[in-house]
């Protein structure tokens, strides 16, 4: 009988062309898809590929997206965009998605990801792709150049950390709270080199948008990647994205596949979490930080501005107005999301509460564009990192929370338990 394997091990084994793999093995994998963006892509990895003097190994398997500097009104950023466009044109690459949104959202939205794929992305949050049952890892630009040249990459087969979220999340509690709780409990190196597999009743009940938040922030646990076993919800999401044939049945982990560690989170008892500056592992129940004044609330990034994130925020602010003097920004994670949120009234609700809708892109998450924090400013955002200097100057401070928690803070001007507001709608 073949040895039972986790979903991740099955994908790696297929990509490596071997029968089975075991954690710790070092194997060379064929890459099904590579994604790169304007910051580390054409201008860095592209340049190195050109220096090597070889073509892209398989043009059909490369997706280039611009998102990092698209909202930055600065000549250097414009030059980066120009270079990306020229490089793509010169190579006649078929898959170029400029200015449409943040890469980790735009990639699946355009049907490029499917269960069972082995993918790499030139960005640390490429882990997001695991929400679709793909094995997707983030790599640096030189490594990416190596993939572009050869179509291969070496991988150490990771151990599995299984997160079992039991029960049902309470209203006002989101996937972001699950992952922040984990950051707080096991720390930013709690899953170093491992794959984090999210499972359990509460995860099964989550929408794909919410699962993406979990896999996105596997990066904040130090993990190689995160993954969620694909199911009917995955298939439906991908069908809508035009991904074509999706095989859910093959891409399941085996019963009895060994995992290194299992952590159980009681989903029903989980309170909203907020991470204090300047590390995601400074996470605690929102009540710990309640009352802390904030001058900016930002709903944005690949982590926290998907359609469902915007809807959650809208549910909190509906019929209310933002605190006087506070800056309240919403930057949808893609243009498609913006359009859908416009159609269903979500954007209007947010605007009525005083939110300013910004163009899509990385923007405030990396301290560029309108949502950049100013000197000595304190903000709360639905992004994934709050390191010193990440979202503004070193004197600025950033709290991380769910879209609900950010929206609640936007209304009161201080960190606030969003359940206080959600309760009224029950």
């Amino acid at each position, binding site marked *: 009988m073949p040895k039972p394997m986790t979903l991740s091990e099955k994908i790696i084994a297929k990509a490596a062309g071997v029968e089975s793999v075991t954690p710790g093995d070092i194997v060379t994998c064929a890459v099904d898809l590579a994604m790169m963006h304007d910051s580390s892509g054409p201008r860095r990895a592209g340049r190195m590929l050109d220096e090597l003097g070889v073509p892209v190994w398989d043009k059909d398997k490369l997706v280039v997206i611009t998102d990092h500097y698209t909202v930055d009104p600065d000549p250097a950023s414009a030059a980066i965009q120009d270079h990306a466009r020229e490089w793509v044109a010169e190579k006649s690459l078929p898959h170029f998605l400029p200015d449409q949104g943040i890469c980790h959202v735009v990639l699946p939205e355009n049907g490029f990801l499917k269960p069972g794929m082995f993918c790499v992305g030139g960005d640390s949050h*490429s882990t997001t792709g695991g929400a679709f049952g793909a094995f997707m890892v983030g790599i640096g630009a*030189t490594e990416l150049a190596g993939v572009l040249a050869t179509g291969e990459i070496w991988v150490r087969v990771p151990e599995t950390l299984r997160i079992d979220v039991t029960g049902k999340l309470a209203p006002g509690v989101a996937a972001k709270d699950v992952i922040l709780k984990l950051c707080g409990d096991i720390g930013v190196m709690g899953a170093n080199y491992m794959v984090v597999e999210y499972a359990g009743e509460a995860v099964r009940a989550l929408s794909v948008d919410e699962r993406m938040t979990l896999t996105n922030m596997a990066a904040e646990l130090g993990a190689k990647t995160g993954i969620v076993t694909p199911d009917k919800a995955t298939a439906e999401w991908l069908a809508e994205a035009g991904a074509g044939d999706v095989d859910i049945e093959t891409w399941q982990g085996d019963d009895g596949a060994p995992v290194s560690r299992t952590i159980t989170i009681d989903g029903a008892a989980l309170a909203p979490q907020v991470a204090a500056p300047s590390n995601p592992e400074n996470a605690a129940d929102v009540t710990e930080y309640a009352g802390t004044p904030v001058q900016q609330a930002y709903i944005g990034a690949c982590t926290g501005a998907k359609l469902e994130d915007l809807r959650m925020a809208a549910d909190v602010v509906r019929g209310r107005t933002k605190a006087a003097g506070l800056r309240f920004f919403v930057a949808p994670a893609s243009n498609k999301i913006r359009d859908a949120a416009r159609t269903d009234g979500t954007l209007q609700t947010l605007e009525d509460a005083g939110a300013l809708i910004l163009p899509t892109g990385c923007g405030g998450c990396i301290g560029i564009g309108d949502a950049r924090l100013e000197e000595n400013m304190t903000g709360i955002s639905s992004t994934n990192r709050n390191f010193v200097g990440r979202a503004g100057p070193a004197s600025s401070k950033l709290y991380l929370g769910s879209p609900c928690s950010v929206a609640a803070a936007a209304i009161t001007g201080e960190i606030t338990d969003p359940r206080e507001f959600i309760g009224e709608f029950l």
Partner: protein
Amino acid sequence: MSTDRNIPEGRAWVYGDNIDTDQLAPIKSYKNMEAEEGCKFCLEALDADFAGAVEDGDIFVAGANMGIGSSREQAPLHLKLLGIRAVLAKSFARIFYRNTLNFGVPALICADVDRINSGDRLRVDPLKGRVENLTTGETLSCDPLPEHLMAMIADGGLMPHLTKKLKQEA
């Protein structure tokens, strides 16, 4: 300084846990400028003297989870351009680990970094996994580099390694 490029020798710069990529490469240091210029801002928020004082051949020593954060390669590149020839740490964030090695700079896991003080003179043999502390006379051991990466490090990093391989195949 050691004459052998593959056995770096220099002063130790010792820092703590979780040195993140936003500190090694703040956004202002890599958006508008080339790394040769941007490296001057490396670690600015933590130690404003570092970038100006570090010398060719020096060794960076960190605690756990060195290089946590983004995939931006400027983080290890800045260290390299400033003259850092090896990075020792209790543990590494995985993308930083690979990025550093890809630039041909040995990244070595060393459980005993606490025994190194800033300013100590170190000689590092990455292939043997050995660190000689010339100041204290101690010899520390590191996890040796995985075998499949030794050839890449010996070639000076991933790009020179691939160039060589592509030539051989041609």
